[in-house]
């Protein structure tokens, strides 16, 4: 319970970074922190006491394994989510670099031709 809340604190900090900061790279960092927080949350909810990884080896007993291993499904989801995060980050960095090329600044208060 406490650890979930700490994880959400990380999430909220990412949101705060997006709202309060005006630097394009800072905004990208905010999105990265949001991703970390959600990934960690998914892994936390799949944790089982003892924390045995869900990988079978030859000498392992199947019964013991299935009683001790952590939940494999959230790990599969997080693997997908990490790669999606990487993809979004790649796009963001390239747009930020193009914006820098056009405006010669990373400051969002100066990049505001559109009225919103």
């Amino acid at each position: 319970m406490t650890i979930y809340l700490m994880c959400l604190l990380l999430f909220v900090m990412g949101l705060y970074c997006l709202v309060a900061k005006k630097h394009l790279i800072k905004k990208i960092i905010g999105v990265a922190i949001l991703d970390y927080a959600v990934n960690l949350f998914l892994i936390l909810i799949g944790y089982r006491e003892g924390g045995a990884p869900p990988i079978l080896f030859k000498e392992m007993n199947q019964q013991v394994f299935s009683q001790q291993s952590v939940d494999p499904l959230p790990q599969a989801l997080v693997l997908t989510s990490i790669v999606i995060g990487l993809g979004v980050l790649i796009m963001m960095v390239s747009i930020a670099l193009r914006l820098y090329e056009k405006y010669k600044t990373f400051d969002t208060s100066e990049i505001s031709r559109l009225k919103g």
Partner: protein
Amino acid sequence: MQQLFPLFVAIPLGTAFLVLFFPKSLTRVVEVILVISKVILLSMVVALIGHAPFSYFVGKWQPPLGITLVSDQISTLLLLVINIVGLLSLLYSFRYMEMYTSKIRFYALFMLMVAGMNGVVITGDMFNLFVFLEIATISSYALVGFGCEHEELEASFKYMILGSVSSTFILLGIAILYCTFGTLNMADLANSISVNGINKSVLFAETLFIMGFGLKGAMVPFHAWLPDAHPSAPAPISAMLSGVLIKACGIYAIIRVSYHVIGMTPLIHIILMSLGMLSMVVGVLLAVGQWDFKRLLAYHSISQMGYVMVGIGLGTPLGILGGLFHLVNHAFFKSLLFLCSGAIEYSTGTRNLKEMGGLFKRMPVTSGSCSIASLSISGVPPFNGFWSKLIIIIALVQAQYYAMAAVTVGVSFLTLVSFIKVQRYSIFGDLPEKLKKTKEVPVLMGTTLVILAILCLVTGVLYPFFGDTVLEMARDALMDQQKYIQLVLHL
């Protein structure tokens, strides 16, 4: 047909990967391939109409284990809209995109966006929905910034930040649902929730979903990105974004999650209706003062999505019918309007209404279809917008929300005023000296405009012929949560 269901995703994906092999000199061949694949998709959708609902298990894994695809009447309706508008926007973009460089990559991104939307609509699994949502939205970020000019990149970045936030909200909601019920399958989740009742964690997840999908669908407190992003994109992409993407990724996802997975409670009804009401009023008020043609249309998108949300959130059979009907109609007339604005931009080089005028003499086809679309969106009979707005208003009156019905009528009136302004300044009036040499758009672009205009008229007039097969069955499917659970789980 049942066996071929995953091809709705596989065909556009395969086309997108394939066309990237071709060099620039073979653009014509690429266009033929694209048209063939879109026509195959469209014919598959047509074959799906009237087909009994079914569920498809990917890799033959039974529901809670693997990913399930679900075909019911709502997904068929959305697939129909996505693929009709997709095909027409594609045909339009053959000539229009000659203004831009690297067309082949544009086509690949376009097909990937279509694949993402088809994937969102046909899936029956929460996480799979998230993944395909990301495909559709990431390709739309790239397409919004396709022109690589100052405003386009800026709009794309803004859209991207808000889009990523909404994705994380959705993922967090999925995580909470998984934590509470231990499954990701929508029907299985629905079953667990209807057995256990809605507790606080489910409500929290629903709040996260409404925020997340609301951001994707530009409901009013979360609408800030739309008026920048939609006008900045190339016109066929604006038509796809406004016409289809905000519906598939926003409205469709909200109604699927709220009606089928979580189940409606009075609280959710009120939240959805107030979101819709707010979008309707704020959108139209912001639209009235605009002089940029595409920006005006973007604000009207927010407002019209508000109508859909009010109808859906009302929850009575008539209200849902009106909402779904308006969703279809909006897809047609809004994409037509965006394509018309693109055609005017193509010929005259401006989007400012003050610089236009008298285009009726120079561009009769564009102006005619633009007028039809304007009449549709402002709710003038006998065009389609009138009927769906009428149904929503009658549903509101029946449910005794008289004040809301009055506001809806008022918003409709303001829409009419706003579009009379558009007509007055762009199509009628005096032709400015600058635009004397304006020519009509090429035949292919004109044809797509005419087809969409005919669709606007036909969906209004011929409603009795398709209403009960497509729309009313979609409504029945939407209202019956147990049937959806049965469809997948075969309890």
